């Protein structure tokens, strides 16, 4: 095979964004490129950006589906600000995504799709491929649709089926650009379309055609290579946040010996957790798709009473519906994990976009004094540990735990070092032995203040729980004023004492300096990248990223006290910053907030921090 490869340019990292109509298979294309990136040994992070509609009006800007991946020869914590390469399958996807492309970036377009009709649908008055508006970019124009049809013309394939594989043509082109072995993707086709050998063959042919087209036509002046990242020894996989969350729960089940019971209801962007747990009955993990969000959480509380590792998964509007029931779990002091994959709100809001705006709801969104543990996973892979820890804390402390993730990390993916379940912490739920003469329903552990878990069916431990206030120790219904005050304090203190069992707040960077950047939840990757880049420039900036919000780590005051300025960055109007102001009023907090349904970008953060440094 002759190759026309020019110079191979070595890069530290690169960002590619695949964009097309929501039916064009861009998510699949992105995922296949991610798999190939994994095999190439790079570290990476991905970010899908898709509309709420399954098939929004074809060819329109609102129907554009995107998938961004950043991969590199070093640690990658974010899916990247702007794309080095944009693949745009039609005018609408170019229009929607041009603002995300580096000023000198490469844009690959399917010229066949730039028809007058499609240009009009996208709102272009003139053809951007001809009017000079793309000057400054390297635009690779390829008649992708025609070439795809050409590649499969000898096969008995109708036009529609043939067109469905055009995304593989672009994948072939991108594989060529980054010197990837395209044959590794063949096994995926064989798996995915195993009932339809013609489709397997067609996808292979189109992928190969794209690769060779890029090669023989010398469309790229040079190709790129990114060395493998120096990852620690071990076995790795690509994982999305929702998958990691599900598996973290399953691992906690195995480690605790408690069957999973997930009572849930489909809601974007949390549904994949219900779907995933539903696949794993072999682990005695039960999922119930209940009639509504309330049925989901309440069935889980029932299962918790019966002795299961009880979980409910949802997103913001669903958390609102579950509020009253979470109060029941607070009062009955039963373990319950509530996974809230945050999305844009209020109301239906932006279902497919990400936000961190449910923090106040998680902390306070119930009637009465109803404290629960609130924690937040920091990345797609960390969702595994977040879910595992949430389950451990819920069961060992007999308390509801709200685990906050968000649409970005739930659907985004990153490289995950696969742990061994036996190496994860042990989980010891306080289950009462049969006929324990000292058992009392609301007798508490002296250290944790948790009550014990007496499972129905166990001889000698019959008792009644419920939403009415409980008498200390006995658990009998009580309207006594002083008892209510005492129990209110006990429930609060039980949650606060979880702080004795969680890790200290870590500081990325020096322990003192000019600016402490504070963040929580799914923004970790971009925050860390911004802070690391500033530190590389010699600036005295450090990052404190919170995973536990209630209770906060015990060293929080100490960490906050060592810096001249504190800035709290959140994808909301400033919820955590206000929790900090309330909890540690001795410090002054600046805040940086963004609420556009989009993640932070490294550069915008650096600009903020630089401005603060220069004040």
């Amino acid at each position: 095979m002759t190759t026309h490869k020019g110079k191979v340019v070595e890069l530290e990292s690169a960002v590619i964004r695949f964009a097309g109509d929501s039916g064009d298979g861009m998510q699949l294309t992105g995922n296949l490129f991610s798999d190939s990136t994994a095999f190439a040994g790079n570290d990476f992070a991905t970010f899908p950006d898709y509309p709420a509609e399954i098939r929004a009006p074809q060819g329109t800007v609102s129907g554009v589906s995107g998938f961004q991946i950043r991969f590199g020869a070093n640690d990658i914590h974010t899916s990247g600000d702007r794309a080095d390469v944009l693949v745009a399958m039609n005018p609408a996807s170019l229009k929607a995504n041009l603002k995300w492309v580096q000023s000198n970036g490469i844009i690959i377009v399917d010229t066949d799709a730039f028809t007058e009709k499609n240009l009009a649908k996208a709102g272009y008055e003139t053809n951007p491929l001809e009017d000079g508006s793309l000057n400054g970019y390297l635009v690779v124009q390829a008649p992708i649709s025609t070439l795809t049809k050409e590649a499969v013309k000898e096969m008995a394939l109708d036009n529609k089926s043939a067109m469905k594989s055009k995304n593989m043509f672009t994948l072939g082109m991108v594989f060529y650009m980054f010197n990837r072995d395209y044959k590794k993707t063949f096994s995926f086709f064989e798996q995915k379309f195993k009932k339809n050998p013609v489709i397997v063959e067609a996808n292979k042919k189109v992928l190969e055609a794209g690769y060779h087209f890029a090669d023989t036509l010398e469309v790229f002046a040079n190709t790129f290579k990114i060395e493998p990242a120096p990852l620690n020894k071990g076995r790795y996989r690509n994982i999305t946040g929702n998958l990691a969350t599900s598996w973290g729960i399953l691992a906690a089940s195995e480690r605790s010996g408690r069957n999973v019971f997930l009572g849930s209801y489909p809601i974007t962007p949390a549904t994949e957790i219900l779907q995933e747990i539903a696949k794993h009955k072999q682990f005695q993990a039960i999922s119930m798709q209940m009639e509504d969000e309330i049925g989901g959480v309440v069935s889980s509380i029932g299962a918790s009473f019966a002795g299961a590792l009880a979980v409910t998964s949802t997103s913001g509007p669903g958390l609102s519906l579950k509020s009253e029931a979470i109060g029941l779990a607070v009062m009955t002091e039963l373990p319950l994990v509530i996974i809230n994959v945050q999305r844009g709100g209020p109301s239906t809001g932006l279902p497919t976009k990400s936000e961190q705006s449910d923090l106040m709801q998680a902390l306070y969104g119930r009637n009465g004094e109803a404290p629960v543990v609130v924690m937040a996973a920091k990345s797609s892979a960390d969702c595994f540990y977040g879910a595992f820890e949430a389950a451990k804390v819920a069961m060992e402390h007999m308390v509801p735990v709200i685990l906050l993730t968000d649409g970005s990390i739930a659907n985004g993916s990153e490289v995950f070092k696969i742990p061994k379940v036996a190496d994860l912490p042990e989980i010891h739920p306080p289950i009462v032995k049969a006929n324990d003469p000292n058992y009392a329903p609301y007798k508490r552990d002296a250290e944790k203040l948790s009550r014990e878990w007496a499972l129905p069916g166990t001889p000698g431990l019959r008792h009644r729980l419920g939403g009415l206030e409980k008498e200390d120790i006995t658990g009998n219904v009580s309207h006594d004023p002083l008892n209510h005050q005492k129990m209110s304090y006990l429930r609060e203190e039980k949650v606060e004492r979880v702080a004795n069992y969680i890790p200290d707040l870590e500081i990325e960077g020096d322990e003192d300096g000019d600016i402490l950047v504070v963040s929580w939840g799914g923004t970790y990757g971009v925050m860390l990248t911004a802070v690391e880049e500033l530190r590389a420039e010699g600036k005295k900036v450090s990052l404190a990223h919170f995973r536990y919000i209630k209770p906060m780590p015990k060293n929080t005051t100490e960490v906050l006290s060592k810096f001249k300025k504190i800035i709290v960055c959140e994808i909301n109007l400033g919820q955590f910053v206000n929790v900090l102001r309330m909890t540690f009023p001795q410090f002054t907090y600046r805040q940086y907030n963004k609420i556009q349904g989009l993640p932070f970008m490294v550069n915008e953060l650096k600009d903020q921090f630089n401005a603060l440094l220069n004040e």
Partner: protein
Amino acid sequence: MESKIQTQPVKLSKEDFESDQMVKWCPGCGDHAILRSVEAVFPVVGEKLNLNKEDFVVVSGIGCSSRFPYYMNTYGIHGIHGRAAALATGIKVANPKLNVWMISGDGDSMAIGGNHFIHVARRNVDITYLMFNNRIYGLTKGQYSPTTFKGQKTKTSPQGVFEQPFNPGELVIGSRGKFFARVVDTNPKLMQKVFIEAAMYRGASIVEILANCVIFNNKIHGDITGRDTKADNQLILEAGKPMIFGKENNKGIVLDGTRLKVVTIGEDGVTEDDILVHDPTTEDAGIHMMLASMMTPEFPVALGVIRATPFQTLNDAVWESVEHEKEVSPYKNVDDLLNSGNTWEID
């Protein structure tokens, strides 16, 4: 599945289930009689199903009836308004060895909990569901419920209720429920018989209890339960027996075209052979629905087990699937799962 349940036969008594808590229902409330009947049947059910006293769980929602778990000495949970069916579903599916009883009222089941009610029936979760229907909100002191009759004046319907009421039996059958029975709080013998049948039935056995609220809706079921009127206004159904009722025991139900009709045996040439024979087990719900719908004064009210059709329970379906997946799944433990699919090794 974990099992802490002993299997040796045990002899249980009524006293095993009596609570030491003070029962705080109003004097004269129908709920007292229901409580006594439930206490009486638990030992019988325990013996029939070889259960320990610890295997019973009593679950409830909110309302007068829902204080029930506190008045029984069993494992129990008093939930939130309307959601007891979801609680019970979680308990039963998580541990199918437990014998789960659910207590609810007409407001709890038909209004705020309507969604859970129809779905627990549809899913056929193996629980015994006692729905106390006093056609009023008692604990909040006298507002109309979804079973209050049209036109009745209550605190929230001073001009009379504008809405038509639900008939719980129709709702159960309309939700493809497989078991529905109806009893009155004034007939402990019938209550106990039906509660035992409901507990023995594998599936969601929903029993409507026409209960009297002595304070806010006194004698609302008076024409059905009254000493002088009950014989003519109650049809007590028994499987395999003709549907005969009345003071003289000479009235019966026949199928007239597509409708039920009350006839008198010995009049117009009607003989006992013309009277419908009750079959609660037919899958076809046609007659069951008509029986559940019968109301005074045109008809007697049907009591006893109206419908009891065999059908797979949800908990059985789930756990059979678990057993099957254990055999066929390639994943024996979570490590297998974590390492499945595309993975790669860094040396």
